[in-house]
């Protein structure tokens, strides 16, 4: 019998009192239907993540809703880590492209700030078509100090950092 079938039966019986049901449930260590956990999950690759306790709701068999303060379960944390994986991957790709001279440092910092050219134009006050043009290294190298300063302010870094990435 598959794991998901167990969950369906679990739902049909209407025994939602987790404390009672966990006693009979052979899958009690896999079934994380209710999100609350006593301790933080080691899902995140970054140590600083997932250290805050939050308030979560759940419903029990008698229809009572409960509020618990605790950590999210593993099943909530995996998709969030997946989102950060996507961001980090894009940053790394952009960094390699800049190193190879295929793109300007603006594209790297844009990924780091998690914005699109449209957002960046709102942040820096430079028009979208100009931002898109500045992604080419050839155009970027000819930029004036004034424009560079606008970008540096948007990214919250110095002009030197903008020109030479690590």
């Amino acid at each position: 019998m598959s794991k998901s079938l167990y969950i369906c039966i679990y739902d049909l019986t209407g025994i939602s009192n987790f404390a009672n049901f966990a006693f009979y449930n052979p899958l009690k260590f896999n079934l994380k239907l209710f999100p609350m956990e006593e301790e933080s999950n080691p899902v995140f690759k970054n140590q600083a993540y997932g250290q805050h306790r939050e308030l979560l709701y759940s419903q029990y068999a008698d229809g009572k809703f409960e509020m618990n303060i605790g950590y999210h379960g593993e099943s909530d944390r995996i998709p969030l880590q997946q989102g950060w994986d996507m961001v980090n991957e894009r940053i790394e790709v952009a960094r390699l492209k800049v190193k190879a001279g295929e793109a300007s440092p603006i594209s790297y910092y844009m990924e780091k700030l998690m914005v699109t050219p449209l957002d960046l134009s709102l942040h820096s006050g430079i028009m979208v078509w100009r931002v898109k043009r500045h992604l080419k290294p050839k155009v970027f190298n000819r930029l004036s100090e004034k424009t560079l300063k606008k970008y540096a302010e948007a990214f919250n870094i110095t002009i030197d950092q903008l020109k030479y990435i690590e």
Partner: protein
Amino acid sequence: MEKENLMIDYKHRQAGHCESGATSNLFNFHGVELSEPMAFGIGNGLYFSYLPFLKLQFAPMTSFRNLPNTVFHRSMKYLEVDSQVIKKFKDPKESMAALDRNLEKGIPTGMQVGVFNLTFFPPEYRMHYNMHNMVAYGKEGNDYWISDTVMEHPQKITSEDLQRVRWAKGAFAPKGKMYWINTIHKDLDIRSAVEKGIKKTVYEMIKVPFPLIGVKGIHWLAKDIKKWQKKHGNETASFYLGSIIRMSEDYGTGGAGFRYIYGAFLKEAGEKFNNPDLLAASNLMGKAANRWREFSYLGARNCKNRSKPEEDYGKLGDMLHEIADMEKAVYVKLDKIKI
């Protein structure tokens, strides 16, 4: 005259959702006991929209909540409370001065902020999300005391940092928006407010003539989920699925995309007015919420093994169809109830 230390006697309570938590805390400060689910239900925060043509963090946008400031605005309107909202300022310094003036008068003030640069916020949530709400209730030298309902305890933030988050840029820019309650008369008509709130939520969930909003939106999403694997491949499909789960479970919803909070609201209202129909509706809502949790539990396994999905996307889609029907039964029931 400027005072160095200002501290308003404001009770911080943690909550599942930022805006309804702030609203209920403000009510409590003015001497009216209103729980978080009650504020959420009256201000009809419950919503569903699936907008595949808008991309949020590279995935189709799914939203389980209403537009920012709806909860505060509508709960004030339905309960007929004297409150004030300043939508935007022209100048950042002016917005900070207005906040100082309010604090000197002893009024705790709610603000809309962006979370990307919010110093005390959990780092895993720091995205370009400009619809967060928190309440300022004290000043100590250059620091402000902030009650953020996502956090367990009150927090401190410097004046410069606060100005930066209040003037965060991008989509839905807050532009220093702030709101507060002026006065409350003690005998609020909660019965009619609950009725109005439920009516509006029912309208938004089943009666809006647009296919991407409400229960119809869930059906549309269910149809799309079945196609993702063929259309985009395993990696992207799991990423899109993950974005739904992130929206429903992680970003301050109290679990199951606010469905638990709404169920708790129906339960509390049913007990208050002694209405068995509302209690039955709350039970059904809780069942739908449990089903949402199962959906995200199964979906998360596909996110774990991205290249080899453990769960069938067809099955997940069928599950969403089932959830949509379960929710529709609740709203149809609520539509006929007389409170």
